[in-house]
């Protein structure tokens, strides 16, 4: 088939370029899930302890919104519950990054032009990118299978395929998005938006329905992964649904890619103004960053509105047996549960906001290494003023999106608007701390600036799955989020907030000092 000519060479090129990233993503995704039996098994070593955990977690709607219901209280079932969604989302993120890198980014940089002038079929670049994504997902799935085989081969296989399959669903979503627009950045934004929506749909569905069969959950590919029900009477046919989605999206992306020009897209680029009104470095940085900020702001507002609407139902008693009632009372009854749900949502937004902030800071790094900053810095513009242009959207922008998420929550919840908004903004010192780590890395070790993503990802992982692993306090405390007061409902502890803000300021100052002293990365 000539449409696929050159796929082998292009796949080898992709694997060569990502020879570190692909194994690393697979190791993180698969390894985390595979570590589940060890960590959870030590904590809940009797059947009674596991049954207790399963009952209380399924009764708690804020827990369900994060992890989904517990379908089985076997050790394998608990691992699938605690790590399944997280693993599926990680696989999706890895696939998204890999596919954009080998499709639209190649076209945007112009490299694809020279590749396509070789004996390369029209479907080959997309196929190579999907095969690279398949390599990540297959390796991660194998790790999951190996790590969980001891808990039952069928369950391990189901979970491995569910996680790898979700990765491939989002690899093909990204492949479709890559046909739509000429900007790799926008492709990432669209695909990440779809992933965010899928997560919110599943969270909303599971929060309102402990059976896992809510319509909202079924609308979400992340929900499909959960509904494979690994270790809980596997529903193998759900894997067929996943496979069908992957196949359909691949065929659609193929059809689109064969119909378009190399470098072109289906959403046309509009012409810009003939005369420029950009007044300086700050205005330029704002112009470059505003699209991303707008997208995040909109996503946070909508997310807040959705989750805010779920607050009332969150405290509803799940099931009417005595056991559930007992758990319900022990968790503090209606008011405490409402607060717990709000606090969980607020901290989820807080952790996600760090991704925006790190991305905005590293945008300056990308400007620098791409050479676009060179003529700016050669003009009468100091490095600090140039950097400030990007740091203001990063720091003020994260405040803005957190405020929007709080606003969304408060609007659709309808009570305690001040407390909810305040709780949202109380996440800010931790967000700023992670952003300032990015500034420090960029300033002091620019070649390792990407490690800021690692830091943000680590904090997300610690916050999302850390507590269940009963990790030592010292490890959990590495995350700035561990030091935030749990709001609303808890005490407003000002000291940690102030200390974190001071730490963020100090790290930022150190990063900027280093930035001024080092060579520009051109």
């Amino acid at each position: 088939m000539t449409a696929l000519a050159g796929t082998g060479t292009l796949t080898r090129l992709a694997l060569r370029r990502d020879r570190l990233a692909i194994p690393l993503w697979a190791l993180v995704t698969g390894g985390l899930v595979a570590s589940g039996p060890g960590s959870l098994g030590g904590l809940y070593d009797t059947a009674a302890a596991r049954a207790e955990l399963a009952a209380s977690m399924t009764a708690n709607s804020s827990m369900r919104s994060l992890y989904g219901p517990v379908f089985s209280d076997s050790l394998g079932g608990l691992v699938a519950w605690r790590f399944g969604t997280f693993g599926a989302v990680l696989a999706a993120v890895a696939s998204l990054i890999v596919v954009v890198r080998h499709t639209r980014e190649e076209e945007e940089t112009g490299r694809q032009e020279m590749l396509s002038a070789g004996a390369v079929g029209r479907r080959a670049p997309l196929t190579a990118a999907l095969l690279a994504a398949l390599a990540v997902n297959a390796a991660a799935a194998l790790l999951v299978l190996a790590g969980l085989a001891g808990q039952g081969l069928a369950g391990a296989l189901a979970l491995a395929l569910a996680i790898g399959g979700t990765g491939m669903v989002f690899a093909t979503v990204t492949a479709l998005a890559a046909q739509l627009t000429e900007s790799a950045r926008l492709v990432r934004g669209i695909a990440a938006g779809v992933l965010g929506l899928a997560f919110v749909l599943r969270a909303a569905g599971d929060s309102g329905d402990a059976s896992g069969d809510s319509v909202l959950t079924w609308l979400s590919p992340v929900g499909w992964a959960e509904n494979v029900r690994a270790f809980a009477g596997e529903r193998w046919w759900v894997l067929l649904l996943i496979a069908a989605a992957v196949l359909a999206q691949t065929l659609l992306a193929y059809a689109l890619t064969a119909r378009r020009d190399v470098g072109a897209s289906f959403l046309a680029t509009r012409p810009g103004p003939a005369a420029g009104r950009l007044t300086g470095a700050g205005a330029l940085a704002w112009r470059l960053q505003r699209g991303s900020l707008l997208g995040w702001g909109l996503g946070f507002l909508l997310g807040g509105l959705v989750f805010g609407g779920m607050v009332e139902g969150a405290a509803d008693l799940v099931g009417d047996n005595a056991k559930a009632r007992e758990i319900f009372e022990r968790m503090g009854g209606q008011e405490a549960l409402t607060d717990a749900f709000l606090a969980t949502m607020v901290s989820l937004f807080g952790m996600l906001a760090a991704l925006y902030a790190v991305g905005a800071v590293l945008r300056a790094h990308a400007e620098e290494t791409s050479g676009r900053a060179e003529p700016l810095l050669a003009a009468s513009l100091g490095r600090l003023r140039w950097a400030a242009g990007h740091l203001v959207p990063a720091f003020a922008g994260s405040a803005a999106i957190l405020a929007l998420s709080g606003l969304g929550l408060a609007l659709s919840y309808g009570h305690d608007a001040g407390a909810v908004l305040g709780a949202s903004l109380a996440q800010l010192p931790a967000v700023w701390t992670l952003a300032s780590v990015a500034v420090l890395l960029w300033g002091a070790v620019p070649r390792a600036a990407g490690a800021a993503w690692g830091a943000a990802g680590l904090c997300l992982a610690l916050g999302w799955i850390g507590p269940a692993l009963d990790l030592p306090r010292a490890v959990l405390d590495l995350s700035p989020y561990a030091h935030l007061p749990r709001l609303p409902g808890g005490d407003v502890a000002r000291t940690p907030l102030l200390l974190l803000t001071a730490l963020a300021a100090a790290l930022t100052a150190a990063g900027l000092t280093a930035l001024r002293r080092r060579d520009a990365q051109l």
Partner: protein
Amino acid sequence: MTNALAVTGLHKSFGRTHALDGLDLTVATGEVHGFLGPNGAGKSTAIRVLLGLLRADSGTVRLLGGDPWADAVALHRRLAYVPGDVTLWRNLSGGEVIDLYGRLRGTGPDPARRAELIERFELDPTKKGRTYSKGNRQKVALVAAFASDAELLVLDEPTSGLDPLMEEVFRDCVREARDRGRTVLLSSHILGEVETLCDRVSIVRKGRTVESGSLAELRHLTRTSVSAELAGTPGGLDRLPGVHGLRAEGPKVRLQVDTDKLEPVLAALLAAGVRSLTSTPPTLEELFLRHYADTEVAS
């Protein structure tokens, strides 16, 4: 002689922009063909259509006897392409990229030829993509193209980053390619390069071919500069057809004349008695400038 390339009435629009508006281009097998035009004339768009990267809106395009869109893969095994702006992968070495492009053409490059070209272009193939300068990135693409021994070389402003010494190496490589019977389509802004290398040229403007032919033919359509020192005063030079810019200072006369009207002018000068005479055929640059100036007025 067959044509390596035959394009007629090629149209391509991007939204409301008509990048190509009825372009014609014929390149015979075995010739070096210059492809000239101002920025934004549609040269690169035309080349991308020839490579099957863009789909033509209308018109016929035959490349090496095939359709560049439908038969892209088979045709690309027989051609090599060098873009004007070469971008490389930051963490791949130049040598890796050369071999990659070779493999994508079907067979890898001949090792001896590859080594020879790397030597001639003074390229360090072990350096990573991010550390190459513009000129060196271009050398990577040029080595890959010349090492391929493809039937057709499509070169889109391939020397824009090269130093004069390397430009000379490039010219030698193009001549060798022609001597081996290869066809070269060379888009360029460096008119001296086109003048020394090309057998025929096509000039495009606003997506149309405005002139096409050998340099001799094109010169025929343009003006020759004549300056002479005379014994007497020639009469009626300014009344002769095709004479422009006549300036007479005592015995010295300078004028430009349409090349096909040269004979009567020389006759008139001879009649007045010639002491010295220089006649300069138009450089490609003059041809180019004049052509655009004229069309500008006409449009």
